[in-house]
């Protein structure tokens, strides 16, 4: 059956999207943060084993294979290294294999960077931005650590827990089919977080979950301590994850090590292994100022602004009718 030609979102929701984007741009204009654009299609791609980049071919280029970005992070850090100062970008990003009520393979990301800030300072600005974007100045915010939430909700210390402990916790908490899953430590933590914790986060307030296990650092700086933690936060509102931010890793050697480690895990899992972003590593070697950065899902923010339960309700043309 052919898909309808009409948009999936109502015109009222599309108008709400336009207003949301205008508020975001006004917020950053007031804050003195510069809007930038970086390439959607690049020669390098994200190495994160949990992300699947889309690839395309540009006829006429000597090296014709290009990857669609999963976030503008790598290119924006090169701008930071070049001395751009505080910058933001609103752009479409692409992630293969992600489709559901809260996922669409092409979505709108708001990403911004604050040189000289750390993640704790940045999350305060994230809360301010969300209040302005939703026009809800009274919206409260709380900051919880990853460890405290696991201890509080599951009576489980996620730091240093072994596979057996986590698997037993998942089975014991009644996650159907947990017994049949083969996961690593982070996979079990992700299962517990998404199935037993996430839906209760951010009810009537902004909940920032922070200080992740170092194994889930992605591109965040790791703070030494007992236990060491990744200086990373995620924002939840009404049980939905809205944003992910870091104190950025600025160490080129450590970044190269993580890229290689990611690629090894990708190869082990039989996933495509795109080229490492050597330009980013060169920029880190030249010197990335200490910075904090965050990416926020604009479509999900619009879902909350409009009370939509499915991402298709806020998209003009979801992929099935694109």
């Amino acid at each position, binding site marked *: 059956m052919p898909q309808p030609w009409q948009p999936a979102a109502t015109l009222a929701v599309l108008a709400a999207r336009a207003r949301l984007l205008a508020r975001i741009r006004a917020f950053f204009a007031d804050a003195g943060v510069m809007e930038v654009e970086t390439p959607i299609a690049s020669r390098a791609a994200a190495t994160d084993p*949990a992300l699947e980049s889309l690839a395309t071919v540009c006829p006429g280029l000597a090296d014709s294979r290009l990857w669609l970005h999963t976030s503008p992070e790598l290119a924006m850090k090169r701008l930071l290294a070049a001395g751009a100062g505080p910058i933001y970008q609103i752009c479409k990003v692409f992630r293969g294999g992600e489709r559901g009520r809260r*996922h669409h393979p092409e979505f709108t990301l708001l990403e911004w960077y604050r040189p000289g800030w750390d993640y704790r300072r940045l999350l305060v600005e994230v809360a301010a931005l969300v209040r302005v974007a939703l026009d809800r100045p009274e919206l409260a915010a709380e900051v919880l650590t990853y460890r405290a939430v696991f201890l509080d909700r599951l009576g489980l210390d996620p730091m240093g827990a072994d596979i057996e402990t986590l698997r037993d916790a998942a089975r014991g908490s009644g996650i*159907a*089919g947990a017994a049949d899953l083969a*996961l690593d430590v982070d*996979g079990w933590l*992700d299962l517990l977080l998404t199935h037993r914790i996430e839906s209760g986060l951010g009810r009537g307030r902004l909940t920032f979950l922070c200080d992740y296990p170092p194994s889930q650092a992605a591109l965040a700086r790791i703070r030494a301590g007992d236990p060491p933690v990744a200086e990373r936060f995620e924002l939840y509102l009404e049980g939905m*994850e809205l944003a992910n931010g870091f104190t950025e890793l600025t160490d080129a050697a450590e970044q190269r090590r993580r890229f290689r480690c990611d690629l090894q895990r990708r190869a082990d899992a039989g996933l495509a292994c795109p080229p490492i972003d050597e330009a980013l590593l060169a920029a880190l070697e030249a010197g990335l100022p200490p910075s904090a950065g965050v990416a926020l899902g604009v479509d999900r923010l619009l879902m909350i602004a409009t009370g939509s339960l499915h991402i298709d309700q806020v998209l003009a043309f979801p992929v099935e009718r694109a």
Partner: protein
Amino acid sequence: MASYSTNEFRAGLKIMLDGDPYAIVENEFVKPGKGQAFNRVRVRNLKTGRVVEKTFKSGDTVEAADVHDTQMQYLYNDGEHWHFMDQESFEQITADANVVGEAAKWIKEQDLCNLTLWNGVPISVEAPNFVVLVITETDPGLKGDTSGGGGKPATLETGAVVRVPLFVQIGERIKVDTRSGEYVSRA
């Protein structure tokens, strides 16, 4: 053996779990901000009708269940088995009481039923949505009552008991909705 990746999961897809055929009722893609994605599904056991939840790691594959629905004509019951016939190939198959289940209350010879076959063997039988059956037993209704209010039990030729309006009498043919087990009208 055919298999499906979780990327292909959608409502209605037939998969094998723990040796039984299931149909996916609902599929939810769940992924934390960074990290492992999962597919949380609700599946219906096609043999028992029971709906359960199950979580898969996204990207995993599951064996496909060779299940399809077909319309067949009910021929007769030999006391132990119900016999059905494919009207195009004239192939006949039998089903026992476990498989026929509730449908046994409603079907009579010549009725067209929906059968679900797994590896060619019937695992469930669905009666037609509406059947017309003769009343074999019911109390005489109050004279002059045509409102249909109140009602009384009536036994049908297949043995099923339904509530009917007071004015409906023994020997009359009535139309019944087999999904709700309710009287619809005189037929």
